[in-house]
């Protein structure tokens, strides 16, 4: 396939690996932020191609994984209301809340549907005018534009039986929170390429200059990842900080202006709780006041309060890059994709699921 196979060519991969080895003098620890990049790294064994001393730690960039338990519980509570149809991405249906998941809610009679896009929920709402159709939307700045468009279109077309349970998150404040953590080992970031297609690169400049670290916008194929790693190491070796874009075929410096415009209209920036990381100031997107009527949290009276994390799941430490998934005592034993203890094993983008798929011994 064009624009895919050329970024997987073994000869290109090999020569970049050699270039990295030639450039690297000291050990460095880099974090790739995005769960999609974590999967590529493990699938292609990128981490094992790197010189000894170069460590990749896996960031919190899996939207399903960082969605707090109370939102799962809120979605389940909505699904149990007789007039509601609760829709979400397929992965969200399997994430355990404090008592079961959305699939269980469906088995118990709740109307729960798996959809590919929040825009599809508009069609469900049109077809079911006597039901309340709710889209439970999670994700970073990549999926937030789709939810914004669904809410916008619902208002434009007067589709009042549609609402959204919004748990969107923003990447830059999470990167700052990780850097501020006392145990932080991150010396350079590979920034999430597709988040930057929407938001551009300007949000990262202040982080790079205040923390004096390199942030390299990186794509998802082996050649992209290796080029990003090369650039990051080159900057570290020469003592440079700043933002570099190694994914220019997709990422414009200004991002996607029309998506950003619509997001600015539909959302407001709020503090948000991240699973495993706690509350991070200004790290969330909630619906702006003028879209209150499409906010499922206002439309439904929900009883869910704060919900503690399950004690035997270490996903919080995994999401901060403090332990590798296979260093968790439950990994592959009490915690598997079929019987996950926490979200990092449930989601196909989660770091634990990636290790289970690509790194299970045997």
């Amino acid at each position, binding site marked *: *396939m*064009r*624009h*895919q196979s*050329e970024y997987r*060519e073994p*000869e*290109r991969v090999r*020569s*970049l690996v*050699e*270039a990295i080895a030639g450039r690297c003098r000291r050990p460095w620890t880099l974090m790739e932020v995005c*769960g*999609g990049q974590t*999967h*590529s790294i493990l699938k292609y064994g990128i981490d094992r191609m790197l010189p000894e001393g170069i460590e990749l730690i896996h960031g919190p960039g899996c*939207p399903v994984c960082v969605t707090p338990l109370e939102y799962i519980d809120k979605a389940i509570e909505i699904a149990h209301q007789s007039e509601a149809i609760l829709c979400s*991405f397929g*992965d969200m249906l399997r994430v355990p809340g404090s008592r079961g998941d959305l699939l269980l809610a469906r088995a118990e009679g709740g109307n729960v549907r798996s959809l*590919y*896009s*929040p*825009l*599809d929920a508009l069609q469900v709402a049109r077809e079911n005018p006597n039901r309340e159709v709710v889209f439970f939307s999670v*994700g970073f700045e*990549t*999926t937030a*534009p*789709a*939810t914004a*468009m669904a809410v916008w*279109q619902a208002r*434009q*077309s007067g589709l009042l039986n549609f609402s959204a349970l919004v748990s969107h998150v923003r990447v830059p404040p999470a990167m700052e929170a990780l850097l501020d953590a006392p145990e932080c080992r991150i010396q350079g970031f590979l920034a999430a390429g*597709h988040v930057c*297609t*929407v938001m551009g690169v300007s949000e990262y400049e202040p982080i790079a200059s205040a923390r004096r670290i390199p942030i390299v916008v990186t794509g*998802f194929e082996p*050649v992209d990842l290796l*080029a990003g790693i*090369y650039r990051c190491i080159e900057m570290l070796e020469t003592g440079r900080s700043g933002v570099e874009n*190694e*994914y*220019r*075929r*997709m*990422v*414009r410096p200004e991002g*996607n202006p*029309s*998506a950003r415009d*619509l997001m600015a209209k539909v959302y407001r920036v709020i503090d948000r709780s991240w699973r495993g990381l706690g509350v991070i100031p200004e790290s969330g997107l909630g619906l702006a006041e003028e879209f209150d009527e499409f906010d499922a949290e206002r439309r439904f009276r929900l009883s869910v309060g704060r919900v503690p994390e399950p004690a035997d799941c270490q996903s919080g430490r995994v999401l901060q890059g403090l332990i590798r998934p296979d260093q968790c005592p439950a990994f592959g034993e009490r915690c598997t994709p079929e019987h996950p203890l926490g979200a990092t094993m449930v989601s196909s*983008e989660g770091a634990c699921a990636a290790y289970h798929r690509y790194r299970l011994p045997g």
Partner: protein
Amino acid sequence: MCLAVPGQIVSLSESSSAERLGRVSFGGVIKEVSLAFTPEAGVGDYVIVHAGCAISALDEEEARASLAEFAALSGLELD
């Protein structure tokens, strides 16, 4: 919900509400997606799609330039 690979636009369709929709092929698997955020993209162009919306169109010139740059920094000669 997150697809890391670009898909190619195979057709554009007009919708009643003037939304810009298109059919996008991901290695032969066709999905209908909103192209409202990528007004510049037409049939044959590659786009990145998240949750049913194209969020970026691939810049062919930058793709060529990047591959050349990656090859140059590793001293590789590829045509």
